[in-house]
């Protein structure tokens, strides 16, 4: 089973890299872009066939390592 994890900054947490990307896009002529927020995408191959168990395990991984929940949210998608 594959788990796809998106880690994103919480609302209200300043994202200087997102701001820099926005600035660069504007400089390239891409107007009309609102706020840019940068995050991380992590793929995990899980040796588990039960989706509920896999989700619990990945949530635990997110809390303990993959995300810093002081500043980051995480979203988990399971496939297969």
């Amino acid at each position: 089973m594959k788990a796809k994890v998106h880690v994103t900054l919480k609302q209200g947490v300043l994202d200087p890299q997102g701001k820099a990307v926005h600035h660069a896009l504007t400089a390239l002529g891409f107007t009309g872009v609102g706020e840019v927020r940068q995050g991380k995408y992590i793929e995990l191959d899980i040796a588990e066939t039960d989706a509920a168990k896999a989700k619990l395990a990945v949530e635990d991984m997110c809390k303990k390592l993959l995300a810093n929940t002081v500043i980051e949210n995480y979203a988990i998608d399971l496939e297969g």
Partner: protein
Amino acid sequence: MKAAVIVFPGSNCDRDAAVALEHVTGRKPLMIWHRNDALPDLDLIVVPGGFSYGDYLRSGAMAANSPIMAAVKAKAAKGVRVLGICNGFQVLTETGLLPGVLMRNRDLKFICRDAWLKVGTARSDFTAGYATGRTIRIPVAHHDGNYFAEPAVLDQLEDDDRIAFRYCDETGAITAAANPNGSQRNIAGVLNESRTVLGMMPHPERLADPLLGGTDGAPTFQSLLEAVA
């Protein structure tokens, strides 16, 4: 004083910390490799600066989950003093020994220069050698030093007198212009609730010998020596 310096793959201020400790205490600290999962009887543990595990995932995230950090947490719970410098501060926030997180610098640049700091509190074994409000000069060298915590956490730190150092200008004024990295409320170093764990982005070990151009970092180590004597 029985001191140990933790060494991770990618630590690069471990030997500077050892030299500063030996200079002040007259004793060589133990150098403890990250794979160890036990620590001997100690008065002080230093988690040094550097780029532990290449800063993979987030600065300090991998080191925080290494075998030795479980032992460091257990010692900290018993009141053994823990000093995290730069990457060590990042590791201590990732382990949860200190609140908040160190994010990418506001201007996205690595900053390597001397910074002026205002001593926020002399009420700790790390800062007793400084007068509260004193202005000192200590080098910073980091990419991720932008201290962030929820406003309620910051208020609590202030109420508890746990902000050890703040970035200021040469005259001691705490201004936005004197904030090198965007840290909330100019915070450069914080203490835990029991005041036995200190994390700070500036490097006191780099300015603890006149030959290195200054000694404003030395009182950090002298204070610790006097506290355990």
